[in-house]
């Protein structure tokens, strides 16, 4: 099979895959349906303050796996759904940020800086159109970069990286996440080490359970999805319970501001935005492609770059469309590029990618890594077909975004009126149900609540969650790579420092931590990657 046949097979796997139902004899593929469902749900959830894409992904993943099962046929519908949610939530997150000055997702924080002032000037419609245009452009751009570079990069990376370099690269990724996310790199590092520590329980190569303290309870280790849901979702739920308890007297209704300004977005205006969108899309794509850094940083950098470029009459921060465009193009272009390290190395950079990896790990039949991009000619490489199928679902979500996304997102402004006291208990119960559906044991519910408590405490002491989650997921890969590098070096104690490339990676991981430790502003709003 040649390259184009693989691409075609991937497209067909999506469009001609298992049918959900047929209209006039034409089958509607279940994968397409799941992408569309995920996308629109993502917009709704993204527009709901207090919820975000990660929540939908977390709750639906165990449920979807129990519906679709563990066969490779389940991969595309489930991953398509996750892709849809990821894209929808990115678009939807800007809605409450623009209309009510409350970012629906942390990525949309910078959108409030210009979006809300535009609303105050009566230009909410224009701001929303700008956000959608920039977001869809950035997203599509980044996807195109992914499709063209991922296969070649994966093969290249695999050619140059041995075991030691791979271990060093994972260490670099972890220190990147630890240093970049959150207010304090040291807290980030503590979180990352905590993740490694907990992931060590009950795993490893020995035939007896490690660090289980002799209990059966810990002998099989900590269940992956349960732990991730615990810290990410349950921790957030507990924090919001506390927040609601504190805020119970200051129940302020969000007032809607009457809109009277110029709310259209003409072709000429769109063209004027293009330089900002272009630069931010590149910034976002580059950041997304680096293993370990997420979209919040991309938004910040995109905004800062746009600010430097900007020479218009209205300054950044006072309600200019360029500000909205620069932010939204940057944070939306992360998700596509983020799959480059996911697919070539199995290293996720943001929460969305974490759930894609979890899906692949739980279902099986698709192991993100260099073997995915093996263009075998005589035999079909099913993983490569899945990879191109995944690309197809992303493109399909983009088409949905361009055609229906803008209109749909202007409808969901109403979501902000849902009171948190009604929302959070639902999230609480849904998460428990989702975990129980997959694991069918009370033990996993206790794990979930335990990790929820951990997530709550981490939020209380402003310790970032993402380094914990990513190191928890990568711990197994890191240990394997280290053990292999050590073994292949014939037990050389300096095995990590024998190749120039791994020395560079290790040096960088120290430099990153030092660099971000100096003069890092502690902005409390930036500490949480998830909402």
């Amino acid at each position, binding site marked *: 099979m040649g390259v184009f046949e693989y691409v075609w097979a991937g497209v067909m796997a999506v469009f001609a895959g298992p049918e959900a139902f047929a209209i006039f004899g034409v089958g509607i593929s279940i994968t397409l349906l799941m992408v569309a469902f995920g996308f629109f749900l993502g917009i709704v959830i993204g527009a709901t303050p207090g919820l975000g894409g990660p929540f939908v992904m977390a709750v639906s993943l165990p449920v979807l796996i129990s519906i679709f099962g563990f066969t490779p046929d389940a991969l595309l519908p489930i991953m398509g759904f996750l892709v849809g949610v990821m894209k929808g939530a990115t678009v939807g997150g800007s809605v409450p940020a623009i209309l009510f000055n409350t970012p629906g997702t942390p990525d949309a924080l910078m959108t409030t800086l210009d979006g809300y002032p535009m609303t105050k000037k009566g230009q909410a419609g224009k701001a929303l159109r700008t956000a959608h245009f920039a977001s869809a452009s950035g997203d599509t751009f980044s996807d195109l970069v992914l499709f063209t570079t991922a296969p070649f990069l994966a093969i290249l990376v695999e050619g140059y990286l041995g075991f030691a370099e791979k271990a060093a690269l994972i260490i670099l990724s972890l220190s990147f996440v630890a240093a970049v996310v959150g207010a304090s790199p040291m807290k980030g590092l503590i979180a990352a080490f905590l993740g490694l520590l907990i992931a060590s329980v009950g795993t490893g190569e020995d*035939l007896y359970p490690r660090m289980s303290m002799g209990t059966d309870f810990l*002998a099989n280790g900590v269940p992956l999805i349960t732990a991730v849901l615990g810290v990410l979702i349950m921790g957030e739920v507990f924090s919001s319970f506390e927040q609601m308890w504190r805020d119970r007297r200051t129940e302020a209704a969000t007032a809607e501001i009457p809109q009277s300004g110029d709310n259209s977005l003409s072709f000429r205006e769109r063209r004027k935005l293009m330089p900002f969108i272009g630069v931010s899309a590149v910034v976002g794509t580059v950041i997304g492609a680096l293993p370990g850094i997420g979209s919040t940083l991309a938004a910040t950098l995109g905004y800062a770059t746009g600010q430097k470029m900007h020479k218009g009459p209205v300054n950044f921060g006072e309600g200019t469309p360029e500000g909205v465009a620069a932010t939204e193009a940057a944070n939306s272009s992360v998700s596509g590029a983020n799959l480059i390290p996911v697919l070539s190395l199995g290293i996720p950079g943001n929460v969305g990618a974490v759930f894609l990896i979890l899906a692949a790990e739980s279902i*099986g039949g698709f192991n993100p890594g*260099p*073997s995915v991009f093996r263009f075998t000619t005589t035999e079909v*490489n099913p993983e490569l077909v899945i990879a191109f199928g995944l690309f197809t679902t992303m493109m399909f979500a983009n088409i949905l975004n361009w055609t229906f996304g803008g209109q749909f997102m202007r409808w969901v402004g109403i979501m902000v009126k849902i009171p948190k006291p009604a929302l959070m208990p639902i999230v609480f119960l849904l998460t428990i149900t989702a975990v129980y559906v997959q694991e069918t044991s009370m033990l996993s519910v206790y794990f979930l609540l335990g990790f929820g408590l951990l997530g709550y405490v981490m939020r209380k002491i402003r310790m970032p969650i993402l380094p914990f989650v990513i190191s928890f997921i990568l711990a197994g890969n890191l240990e394997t790579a280290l053990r292999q590098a050590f073994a292949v070096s014939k037990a050389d104690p300096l095995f990590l420092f024998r190749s120039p490339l791994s020395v560079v990676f290790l040096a960088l991981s120290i430099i990153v931590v030092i660099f971000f430790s100096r003069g890092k502003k502690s902005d409390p709003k930036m500490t949480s990657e998830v909402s």
Partner: protein
Amino acid sequence: MKLGRIKSTLVAVALASSMATAAVAEWQPSGPIKLMIAFRAGGGVDTSARLLAEELTARHGWEIIPENVAGRGGAAMAAALKDEPADGLAIGMTAMDSLAYGVLAAKNPGFTPEDFTYLSAITGTQTGLIAKSSRGWKNLGDVIAAAKAGEEISAGAMSAKLADALYLIGQANGVEFTTVMVQGGKGGLNGVVADDLDIAWAAGPQTQGVKAGDLVNLVSAESAPLNISPDAPLLNEYNVEFTFGTKFGVVAPAGLDPEARKVLQDAIVEVVNDPESKLNQFITRAFSGPEPIAGEDFDAFMAAAREESERFLKAVE
């Protein structure tokens, strides 16, 4: 006297009635059967187990709930299954070697081979030592020659036993390999393809690459030649008296009622042997094909496997 008569009458009645029910109806599971799988979801063994469950449900109407209890080379599943009641409602699919070599090699696995009732084997591995074709090696002899000529040979193994096997092969031929532990069935394959390893064990996933001509099976670790590489030599040609393949099979906790054991193992063997069954077709494609060994034959097979493992461990020491 009188009491004794009543007693014996009661026993006779009880016996008669139990025989009557046995004759009328075979053992049937009294509820859903939990099928524990000793491997991660999505792999070859997991797929086989799920296909087995599907076929058993279709043929007998039993509700079967597959559950992955992966980890520690099958020891995690064995430890969990041991504590389940022996009522036929909990069975497990595993690599049989985890109940032979695995028990002997582990310091304290938390179970013994006597903790289980052996129902039936299903299929076996197609383990071979692989290398990239571009290296020019045709068989293990070429690799040994290269090592003797001073080349460092790194070799991937996915289990402690296969790592020991590399040591033994080296010892028997006067060379030494640098052994690297790899993860799962594909770890060694990926290492070889990416040039991180020179050679590696692979128990089936190499089929695609060998057919395409990118990879070569240097030697068969099974007692018979490999299906896809019938020309690959056996290990006994290199002074190694052991084989390193394993069977996959289904076990239940010890003390399973013989009637239940018979019903379960017959049902499994029927599915394995039926060329129309999805399981049969899958194991023919992905493993060594149908290899049902049930009942006393299976007990004898396991006894022999343990005996060979003991000899193997002595040889390695």
